[in-house]
């Protein structure tokens, strides 16, 4: 099967996501580049800035109330390639939308880069950021909600 350097199949979490990611892998596309986005991302673009497109995650994490996704408009994979003004615009886009949705709290998170020694948690390497409001009511009595930032190569979670 073809290799696709734009994605990391090891970070795929859901079966419905896997099917689309398999196709992306086969096509050799970056699913977040503008020319491919419409083909793979079915949620509407809520807002477009100079640097970012704001939308909702197509495959939200489990036990979140809201999950916004901001996709960088050009193909970069590392924060060192980001325009210094882009961070400010990202906060502006996220906070405007969070206000509208009365989001009570959470985190803004972004992953970047790649390594042969493991992965940093991204299924798509094209820079993107998440705004997450966890769903406290959905969590079990001894359950925390954590955002993954890294794992070794061939890592298998203990069950």
């Amino acid at each position, binding site marked *: 099967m073809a290799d696709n350097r734009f994605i990391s199949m090891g970070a795929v979490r859901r079966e419905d996501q896997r099917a689309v990611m398999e196709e992306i892998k086969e096509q050799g596309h970056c699913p977040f580049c503008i020319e491919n986005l419409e083909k793979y991302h079915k949620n509407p673009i809520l807002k477009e800035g100079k640097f970012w497109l704001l939308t909702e995650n197509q495959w939200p994490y489990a036990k979140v109330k809201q999950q916004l996704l901001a996709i960088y408009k050009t193909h970069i994979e590392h924060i060192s390639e980001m325009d210094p003004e882009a961070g400010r615009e990202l906060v502006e886009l996220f906070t405007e939308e969070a206000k509208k949705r009365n989001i009570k709290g959470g985190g803004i998170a972004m992953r970047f*880069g790649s390594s042969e020694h493991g992965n940093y948690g991204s299924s798509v390497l094209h820079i993107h950021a998440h705004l997450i409001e966890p769903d406290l009511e959905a969590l079990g009595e001894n359950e925390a909600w954590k955002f993954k*930032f890294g*794992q070794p190569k061939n890592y298998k979670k203990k069950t």
Partner: protein
Amino acid sequence: MTSDILKIDGLTPHQVLTLSRVRGFKQYLNMLERYQNGVCVFCDPLGPKNRVIHEVAGWRMWENPFPSPGSELHLVLAPVRHISTESLPSARDFIAVGELFEWAKLEYGKKRLIGGGILMRFGSPEYNAGTVLHLHVNIIIPDLKSELRLPLVKDPGSTLRGYKRLAVFEKLRIGIHLTNLSSEERLLLEEDLDELQRELEKLTM
């Protein structure tokens, strides 16, 4: 919610919640004193362990002296003036962040900043597992030797344990002797009792 479990005079429920998440008695005393003086641990004067490596336009950056387990490098970026995390951040407060990133890029090089993540918590600390209510951005470079996940919600069991431990810290602070704690209360302390005793002696001096 659990923030109603324990009240400390002069402190907001969110401040009490953050105290329930401290690593130990010493940090508890430090944070409490600061709250009572109307400042927090990221306000001036910054604690001696947080050694600023760069400052620009009202923001500063330091290496976290208590990095997240599994990280090779953990940088903290925060404004000098207190901006609360309890409300949504304002984009105009982020003018300097890009410049700090640029500086870090040159200082550490792409090889050390090969990959990782950025996390900024906002809003109610019940929704973000924050310990510091002062706006800040974390840049984390995992070592990729173990899984690295950062919490946005602590599990209710550990939150409850944190409140119970905080109640014990409060007892000690107001002068109840270690030997007068119940065995259950002593178990909650989870720290070196000799070190704790030394802190208590400093309190009474």
